[in-house]
C-alpha cells in the first residue's frame, strides 16, 4: 500500500485505522507515512476507509488556517477526505503479506479466502476430524499484533519434532520446504502477516502434549497464540472427551463454533422450491 503525498492532507484518520499501527504523520514531510516493515498489506485502510475527493490544497489551507485559532479540521473518523491511498504492485516475497492479511484475497494453494481452511466447519461433509481425533488450529498474530514467518517456523518445527502431521491444504503448510521438520522457505521468514493458522490433527490422547508444546513455544516468540480445538461430538451431540482435558489444563472455554450437522453430499435442488416472501423494507432501521 502507498499513500499519495500529493493527495494526503495529514488529517491523521488513517493512523487509527491501521490494525498494525504502521501509519504515522511524518513531522518533516507533514504527510501520512507507512512503516513498510510493519505494514502487513491487509488493505484495511484502502478497503475500510470511506472516501471523499476534496481538493488537497484547499483542505491543507483550511487546516492551517483553523489551526491558528486552535480549531481542528475533523473529517468523519472513518473517512479519507482526499482518497490518498493507492494499492502498490506487490512482488515476491512481499506478496505473501497480502495473501495472509487481506481476507478477500484467496490463497492460490487452497482456493479459500483467509488464513486457514474449512477446519471442522464442513466436518459434516468432509469427516475431516473423526471420533477420537482432535483438530488443532494454532493461530499466531491476533489480536492486532501480527506475526512473522520465523515465528510460525518456531511453532511448526516444535510440532514437527513431536511427529505430528500438518494439514496439507493449509496455506502455511504449502510454504514449508520440509513438512517433516516444519521448515518454512527462507525467503519469507522475515515477512510479517496479520495472522495465520497452523493446522494439525492428532489422536485425543495427545491433546495435553500438544498444548504443552504450544505453551513452550509461545514463551519464545514475540506474538500472541490463540488455540482452537476441533472435535467430533457423539451421536447425542455431546462432547465429553476433550473438554475434561482442557479443563484439567486450566481452560474454561466460553466460546465455540458449533457445526450443527446439516451438510450433505448433495446440495438441495431448489428448482421447484417454494418462493420466499421478500420483506418489503430490507434496510434495517
Amino acid at each position, binding site marked *: 500500500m502507498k499513500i499519495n503525498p500529493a493527495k494526503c492532507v495529514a488529517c491523521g484518520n488513517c*493512523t*487509527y*485505522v*491501521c*490494525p498494525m*499501527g504502521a501509519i504515522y504523520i511524518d513531522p518533516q514531510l507533514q504527510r501520512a507515512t507507512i512503516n513498510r516493515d510493519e505494514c502487513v498489506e*491487509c488493505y*484495511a485502510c484502502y478497503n475500510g*476507509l*470511506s*472516501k*471523499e475527493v476534496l481538493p488537497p490544497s484547499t483542505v491543507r489551507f483550511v487546516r492551517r488556517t483553523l489551526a491558528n485559532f486552535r480549531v481542528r479540521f475533523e473529517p*468523519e473518523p*472513518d473517512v479519507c477526505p482526499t482518497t490518498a491511498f493507492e494499492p502498490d504492485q506487490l512482488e515476491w516475497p512481499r506478496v505473501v503479506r497480502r495473501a495472509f*492479511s487481506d*481476507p*478477500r484475497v484467496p490463497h492460490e494453494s487452497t482456493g479459500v*479466502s*483467509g*488464513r486457514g*481452511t*474449512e477446519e*471442522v*466447519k464442513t*466436518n459434516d*461433509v468432509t469427516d475431516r476430524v473423526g471420533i477420537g481425533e482432535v483438530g488443532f488450529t494454532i493461530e499466531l498474530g*491476533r*489480536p*492486532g499484533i501480527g506475526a512473522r514467518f520465523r515465528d510460525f517456523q518456531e511453532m511448526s518445527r516444535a510440532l514437527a519434532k513431536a511427529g505430528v502431521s500438518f494439514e496439507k491444504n493449509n496455506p502455511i503448510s504449502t510454504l514449508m520446504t520440509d513438512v517433516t521438520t516444519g521448515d518454512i522457505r527462507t525467503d519469507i521468514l522475515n515477512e510479517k502477516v*496479520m495472522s495465520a493458522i497452523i493446522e494439525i490433527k492428532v489422536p485425543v490422547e495427545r491433546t495435553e502434549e500438544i498444548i504443552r508444546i504450544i505453551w513452550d513455544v*509461545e514463551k519464545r516468540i514475540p506474538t*500472541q497464540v*490463540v*488455540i482452537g*480445538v476441533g*472435535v467430533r*461430538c457423539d451421536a447425542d451431540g*455431546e462432547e465429553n472427551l476433550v*473438554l475434561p482435558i*482442557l479443563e484439567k489444563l486450566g*481452560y474454561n*472455554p*466460553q*466460546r*465455540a463454533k*458449533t*457445526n*450443527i*450437522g*446439516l*451438510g450433505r*453430499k*448433495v*446440495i*438441495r435442488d*431448489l428448482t421447484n422450491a417454494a418462493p420466499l416472501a*421478500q*420483506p418489503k423494507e*430490507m434496510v*434495517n432501521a
Partner: protein
Amino acid sequence: MTNTLHRYGKSETFVDDYIVFSLPAKSKAAGQTGDALAAQKRFMQIAAEYKPASLGDALHGGSLRPTKSKSIFGHWGKRNKPNFKKVLEGMSKAGTMAAVFDSRANAEAFVKRIKEEDLGLSVNISSSIENAKNACKHAGIPRHSIAYSLGFEEVGDNTPGKQAIMLSTMCGHGMLSINLAQKMMSFVKENRRTPKEAAETMARFCSCGIFNTTRARRILEDVRVGVK
C-alpha cells in the same frame, strides 16, 4: 479460518451475539455436488426474515460498507444504514455467508427453520457454547462437531483496554484496529458520538459483515459510564 471463533469475552457477554453461517465443502475430495450459491441465497433470504443485526458475504462485505462521496458534506451527519438488500443482491460466488442475530428467539427460530429447509449446506453457530447448545436443542439437532476457542493466552479479565479488544475482535480477520476501537470509546465517553454511531463506524471495517453492532453498542454504553 477462525474469524468468528475467537471473539474476546466471557460467555455472558455473548447474550446478544449469535453468528449463524453457511458454507459449502469446497475441496474436490469432499465430493459435494449441487448449486451451492442458490442454496446460500435461500439461506440468506430466510435469515433476512428473522430480523438479523447484520448479514455478511465474506467476499463482498456486510450490510454496512464504506461509502464514497464527492461532496464535502457527503459524510456529515447522515450515513448509510444497514442494507440487507445490497448483501443479497451482491452474492455472486458460494463461500461463507453469515447472519448475525442479537436475539436468542430469532436465532433459535432461524436455526429451526434452516433445519427444516434441509439445504445440504454446512451450517455453524458461533457464539457461547451454551447459546449454540440451546439453539440445537430448540431445533432438535444433535451437535455434529465443535471447535472450542481457548482464548487469548495473555489477555485476562483485568487486562487494561479489554473492552477495546472485545470490540476489535468482533472482526476476526483483524480489519478493525484496536486503536480505532479505543478512539471510538473516547468519542462516546466525550459525547462526540453516540454508541450507535460509533458502532456503525467500526462495522464498516469488517469486510465479511459479522461485526455485531448491538453488542458493540452495549459495550460502548458500559464504556461511557465506566463499567469495566
